[in-house]
């Protein structure tokens, strides 16, 4: 896929209209994972709009987003950056062999109290 098609695909599956963004940065101001991320929520909106998607696809930022929806909730323009990040992440892990996490990774994550919820959620986010 070239950039235009990739952009179209991401906008389609996210259902987001990035043109509504007024570049206020409130999403990134709200983001609890900001420091862990190379690209921040507002950059997802603007880079996708610009068609710069490859750097996003390669970035670990995709796996640091907590899906806590704070950016969505506080965006004054209804842009929903979390949906954009999800769409890019899926575009990345839907590729053959691109799973972020495998069953082999599980044992080291476990301790006595690890809830099943953690594993299930992580698999949903990191694996296709």
């Amino acid at each position, binding site marked *: 896929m070239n950039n235009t098609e990739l952009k179209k695909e991401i906008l*389609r599956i996210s259902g987001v209209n990035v043109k509504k963004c007024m570049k206020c940065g409130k999403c990134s101001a709200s983001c609890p994972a900001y420091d862990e991320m190379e690209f921040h929520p507002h950059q997802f909106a603007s880079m996708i709009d610009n068609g710069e998607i490859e750097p996003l696809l390669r970035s670990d930022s995709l796996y640091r987003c907590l899906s*806590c929806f704070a950016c969505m909730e506080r965006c004054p323009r209804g842009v929903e950056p979390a949906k954009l990040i999800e769409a890019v992440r899926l575009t990345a892990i839907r590729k053959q062999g691109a799973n972020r996490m495998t069953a082999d990774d599980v044992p080291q994550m476990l301790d006595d109290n690890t809830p099943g919820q*953690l594993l299930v959620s992580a698999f949903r986010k990191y694996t296709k």
Partner: protein
Amino acid sequence: MGVIMKVTYFPGCTLKNKARDLDEYGRKSAEVLGITLEEPKAWQCCGGVFTTANDEIATKLSSVRLLRSAKDADQPLVTVCSACHNVVKQTNHAMKNDIVFRDRVNRYMAEETPYNGETTVYHYLELLRDVVGFSNVAMAVKKPLAGKKIGAYYGCLLLRPGKVLGMDDPENPRIIEDLIVALGGEPVIYARRNECCGGYVSAESPALAEKNSGKVIDNAAAAGAEMLVTACPLCKYNLEKYSSKLPIVYFTEILAEALGIKEEVNE
């Protein structure tokens, strides 16, 4: 209190093992409050997180099946785990409002009648507030949590996206605080009560979870909380793992305690 409502109750996977407390205290309390929880015969894990991509069908089917079983039983669906609540309610919202998604799911499932989001989904807290009523909960209290300073920890999944979940004001929620008041406790408001603990990312980046959870607990402690209550097993796990400053319990536990049935459950 007589039976006021029968509901379909979805415990979810974690409540069957690590979060047994959340489930058992919830069940017993419901009984006391006149709510009959009926667990569907067969249910699957909700998936833990809702995938917002609107072309994702498979990951949402288990929730749709669950919603359908509640519809067939003509009962509202009640969840108690924040994550299940989030996934099931968002899925129901999509089934109700996203026509393309709904049609694809219905075609895929090929059931006799389509499911169009008819089921009402309640979080257990909403059930207490909107069906039982906090004033009735207060009347059923046997052992008030007198003077206990309790911080409600909502996290992210219980409230957001606010428009879809429609549970409470996502920036200034009151529902757990109101419950604490009903149970005779003293709620402690602190700003980070709706900030994420680190969620599933703790699988990959414990540092992030540690930082976030720490901030939440510090903020609550600074505001004078003596304990935190939550509705989410993952929140409880993260908060407990990264700080021992405050005890973390499920809201159903303080409910059971105030209703005077905590010991009964533990017997």
